[in-house]
C-alpha cells in the first residue's frame, strides 16, 4: 500500500523557504563554533605543553574526556543545567559546546603543527634572547599554522555535520525546521530528502573551499 512513492512537488516547493531559514542558523552555529574552537584550541595546546606536570596532565585528561564522550550527552548536560538562565540562549549554548568539543580536536592538530617546527627554531629564539611569549608569537606559530590548514578544514566540515544535534536542545536549525515542517505537512519524504541534499551540497562546497585554500597556501609557500 506504500509502494507508490508519494512525492509531492508542491510540498517540496513549500519546504524551500523553511530550509532557507534553517540554513542561516546552521551556518551561524558552524562559523561561531569554529571560531571558538580555533581560539580555544591554542591555549589548550600551550597549557598541555606546560612544564608544570599537574597542569599538563589535567589538560590532557580534559581533552581526552571531551573527545571520548558523545557531543549529544555533553549538550544535554550543559543545556539542562543552564536552561532558565536568561543569558543562555540555545544558540549560545550550541555554539559554545560545538566550540569546546572541537577545540579538543583542534588542539591536537595545533600540537602536530607545533611539533613539526624543528627544535633548532626554539634554540635560535633562545640564542636571540627572545622571551617565551615572543618565541611563540613570532617564531613558532607562523611556521606551525600553514601546514595544518587542511586538517583544520576537515574539522570545519565535521562540525557542520554535527550541527543537526543542536535540534535536541531546541535550536531551530535545519533539522528542527525540517521536523516542524514534516509535522505540519504530515509528509517526510520531500523535506528529509531535500535536507540531505542541502547538507551534501554544503559539505562538498566546504571541502572544495578547503582544497582551494590548501592550493593557495602551497603556492605562497613555494
Amino acid at each position, binding site marked *: 500500500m*506504500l*509502494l507508490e*512513492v*508519494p512525492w509531492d512537488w508542491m510540498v517540496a516547493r513549500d519546504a524551500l523557504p523553511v530550509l532557507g531559514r534553517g540554513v542561516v542558523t546552521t551556518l551561524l552555529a558552524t562559523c561561531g563554533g569554529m571560531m571558538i574552537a580555533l581560539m580555544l584550541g591554542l591555549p589548550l595546546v600551550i597549557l598541555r605543553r606546560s612544564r608544570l606536570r599537574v597542569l599538563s596532565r589535567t589538560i590532557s585528561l580534559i581533552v581526552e*574526556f571531551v*573527545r*571520548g*564522550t*558523545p*557531543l*549529544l*550527552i*555533553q549538550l*544535554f*548536560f550543559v543545556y*539542562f*543545567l543552564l536552561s532558565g538562565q536568561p543569558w543562555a540562549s540555545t544558540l549560545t549554548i550550541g555554539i559554545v559546546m560545538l566550540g569546546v568539543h572541537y577545540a579538543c580536536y583542534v588542539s591536537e592538530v595545533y600540537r602536530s603543527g607545533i611539533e613539526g617546527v624543528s627544535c633548532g627554531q626554539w634554540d635560535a629564539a633562545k640564542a636571540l634572547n627572545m622571551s617565551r611569549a615572543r618565541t611563540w608569537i613570532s617564531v613558532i606559530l607562523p611556521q606551525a599554522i600553514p601546514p595544518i590548514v587542511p586538517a583544520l578544514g576537515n574539522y570545519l566540515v565535521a562540525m*557542520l*555535520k*554535527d*550541527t*543537526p*544535534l543542536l535540534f*535536541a536542545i531546541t535550536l531551530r536549525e535545519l*533539522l528542527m525546521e525540517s521536523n516542524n515542517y*514534516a509535522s505540519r505537512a504530515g509528509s*517526510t*519524504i520531500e523535506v*528529509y*530528502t531535500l*535536507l*540531505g541534499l542541502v*547538507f*551534501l551540497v554544503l*559539505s*562538498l562546497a566546504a*571541502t572544495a573551499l578547503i582544497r582551494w585554500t590548501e592550493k593557495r597556501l602551497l603556492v605562497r609557500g613555494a
Partner: protein
Amino acid sequence: MPFFDLFPHLTQGLWVTLKVYVVSSLAVLVLSTLAGLGRVAPNALLRGLAALYVHVFRGLPVLILLFWLYYVLPYFGIELGAFAVGVLGLGLNYSSYGAEIVRGAITSIPRGQWEAATALNMSRWSRMRYVILPQALVRMLPPYGNLQIELLKNTALVMFISVEELAHHGRVLQNSTQRTAEIFGISLAFYFAIAALTAFVVRRIEVAASRGIRAGGAHVA
C-alpha cells in the same frame, strides 16, 4: 545513597548502547573493507561506484541519514526496525571514512611489494591477499581505532529513532527527576569507559599484528 537509584535505568540503556556499538562496528568493518577495496579496484566502474559511495555518505550528517532511513525508506516499501536502521545508518556513514583508511593503507604499501609479488607469479588476488593486505591491516589499525571511538560517540544518536539506549534513558530520567548533573555525569562516564576500553583493545591488536612486520622489517634491514 540516592545516587545509586539511577543505575538500574542507565545500565539497562548501557546494554543497548553496547549492542548497537558492537553490531554497527561489524557493519562498518565489512562495508569499509568492501568500499575500500572498491576504491583501488582495477575496474573503473567499480572504482567510480566506490568513490560515489564514499562521497555521498561522508557528506551526509549521521543524524540526517538516520532520519531518512527511518522515516522515508518505508515509503519505498523497505521497513527496517529501529535497531536495524541505527546499525545501517551508522554503518553506511562510518564505512565511508573507513573505506578511505583502507584505501590509504593499501596505497601506502611500496610499489616494490606489488612488483616482487608479480615476479613471484602470484595472481592479482593472491598478491592482495598474501602480500599487500596483511601489511596494510597493520597500518590501518591506529586510524581505525579513532574511527571506532567516533562511532561509539554517535551511537547516542539512535535515541532519536526510538532505540532505547543510554542517551534515551538519560533523557527520560531527566524528564522525571531533573537530576541533570548525576544522570548525564554517569552517562558520560559510561561512554568514556567504553572509549578507553576500545582504545586499549585496539592497541593490543596493533601490538599483536605488528609483531610480524617488525620482525620482517628487521630481517630486511
